[in-house]
């Protein structure tokens, strides 16, 4: 299947936006301007974008603690996201959520989530809503989250109810500091998902095209009314588990090697320019566009309105 020039540019724009958003946050956090725990998504962009480029606002996704990439890929406003992470009352969640709970339900983005494994069951519920509408519900989980009982229950229930739910397992080979080979007892997440009775495939999570093709396959399967499916994406995380993580669990030179050999943005650029689908200059133009967007997001966030004490009791619907 051939993607249009517009579709290719859009995919690159989205991946680059995520990368620059995360790279910039990494720098800003080092300056001490941003509070709380922040888990960066850099390295995994091809996953979020390869999945979400198939979706529209009526499809649902639910994310994880590492949620910025999923939010951007699903169309959340980048400036409002940044303001949220800065804790402004102009933020997407009015400064209540910070990095870990960004949501925009109007865009089908049911939230980043601080509880590992909480997403998959909620995606099943969104799958109940989506059933029969031609839309799908996507649960993003990591290689760590795949070990939660909640994830198992959700997979089984989605099969039993024949729901259009897709379990996307982003295998970045670590849950916090623990290697995937230690914590995942099965041979793979795919083998495990298949054992629940769903279609389960793998794709290359550093190659946008591989993710995109794989997703096409499982989405078609779900939309045909066959029930849920799963896709396991082999990918990499470029920063620590959270910002401030000394990453002593990494191998020597591991990060340099990953950034050199397994960078999904480099892979994309090489593929599209070698196949003459896009020019390097097209991509450079997008780089400039995205740089300007992120600069604006940060600048606006730094001067955005701060919340005040009376906001604490807003939106609890019953106050005392």
């Amino acid at each position: 299947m051939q993607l249009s020039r517009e579709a290719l540019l859009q995919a690159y724009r989205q991946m680059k936006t995520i990368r620059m958003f995360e790279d910039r946050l990494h720098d800003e956090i080092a300056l001490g301007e941003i509070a709380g725990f922040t888990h960066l998504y850099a390295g995994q962009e091809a996953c979020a974008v390869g999945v979400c480029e198939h979706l529209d606002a009526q499809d649902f996704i639910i994310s994880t603690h590492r949620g910025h990439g999923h939010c951007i890929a699903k169309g959340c406003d980048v400036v409002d996201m940044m303001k949220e992470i800065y804790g402004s009352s102009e933020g997407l969640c009015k400064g209540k959520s910070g990095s870990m709970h960004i949501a925009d339900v109007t865009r089908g983005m049911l939230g980043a989530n601080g509880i590992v494994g909480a997403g998959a069951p909620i995606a099943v519920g969104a799958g109940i809503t989506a059933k029969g509408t031609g839309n799908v519900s996507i649960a993003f989980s990591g290689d760590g989250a795949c070990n939660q009982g909640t994830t198992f229950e959700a997979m089984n229930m989605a099969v039993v109810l024949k729901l259009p739910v897709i379990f996307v397992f982003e295998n970045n080979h670590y849950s916090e500091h623990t290697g995937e080979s230690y914590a995942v007892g099965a041979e793979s997440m795919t083998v495990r998902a298949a054992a629940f009775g769903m279609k389960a495939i793998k794709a290359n999570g550093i190659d946008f095209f591989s993710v995109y093709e794989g997703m096409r396959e499982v989405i078609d399967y779900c939309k045909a009314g066959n029930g849920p499916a799963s896709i396991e994406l082999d990918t990499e995380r470029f920063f620590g588990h959270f910002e401030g993580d000394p990453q002593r669990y990494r191998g020597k030179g591991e990060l340099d090697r990953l950034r050199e050999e397994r960078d999904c943005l480099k892979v994309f650029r090489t593929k599209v320019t070698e196949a003459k689908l896009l020019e390097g200059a097209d991509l450079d133009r997008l780089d400039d566009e995205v740089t300007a967007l992120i600069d604006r997001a940060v600048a606006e966030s730094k001067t955005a309105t701060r919340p005040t004490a009376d906001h604490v009791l807003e939106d609890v619907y019953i106050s005392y």
Partner: protein
Amino acid sequence: MKMIRDVIRDTIDEEMARDDSVIMLGEDIVGGMGSPGGPEAIGGIWGTSGGLWAKYGSDRVIDTPISESAIIGAAAGASLTGKRAIAEIMFADFIGVCMDQIWNQVAKFRYMFGGKTKCPIVIRMPYGAGYNAAPQHSQSIHAMVTAMPGLKVVMPSTAADTKGLLAQAIRDDDPVIFLEHKALYGVKGEVPDGDYLIPFGHARQVTQGDDVTILATGMMVGFAEKAAAQLAQDGIGCDLLDLRTTSPLDEEAILDSVERTGRLLIVDESPPRCSFATDLSALVAQKAFSSLRAPIEMITGPHSPVPFARELETAYLPSPEKIVAAAVKAMSYRRG
């Protein structure tokens, strides 16, 4: 002088050395299992278990997948069958994931089984706000577990108490919920050498005074201490009690103090409804009613989740200033 996080590790170490049946389970408590950096690359995200795996091995220091239900269930099963398990739930907020194992299993075994069994499990949970960690990583859950018959609940605030209470918890034959305030891990204090146990149900007198009784636990003790120092300058004497355990509760110390001062401030880092603060208020209203010279003041979080933004979290939390204001209010109360 030792940091509280080191006191926790050292106390577990001492108890594991003392008793072969003590085991430990939790996520990333070894840190680095299955990674290129290898086991103990990190040693637990809180630094409360470094070096234990190297010393005691994988059969006793058990690094688990992300599976809170199975962690508590496994710790419970091991404790029912001869082990003394110390389970770590990385953030107290994750109690939601394993609530059944705690509430319906661990807490009820001894009673349901006709008193013929014991379940010597310790469930350690870092809790509390102050890190801008947002609604799912900042909560204080002591009210919930204190309300459950069959659990003992411990909330140390100093390095010495951490040692004495944790050793006691590990040697206790019943389930203990051991709540460690995240913001106190780096706090240093003197710690007694050797065997040191603090029996449960005994409050610690932090300051003495005749005007106002202040009850606090965990991080709130330090806040109350600051407030008491300021109030002392203004001539208001505070009787500050660090309750140390919420179940069992040192009712006697509380009532004795209120009978002397006639005024009660309760400082509690969680929302106000059906809370530890309301529980203490009820106790005093029932058993020391005639001693009260002013309404009981509760300095608590509001009825909301813990918000993310710095300004919001600060507004959420009790503070020394809020405690001082409440004390002044209690002192100025006149019966109408």
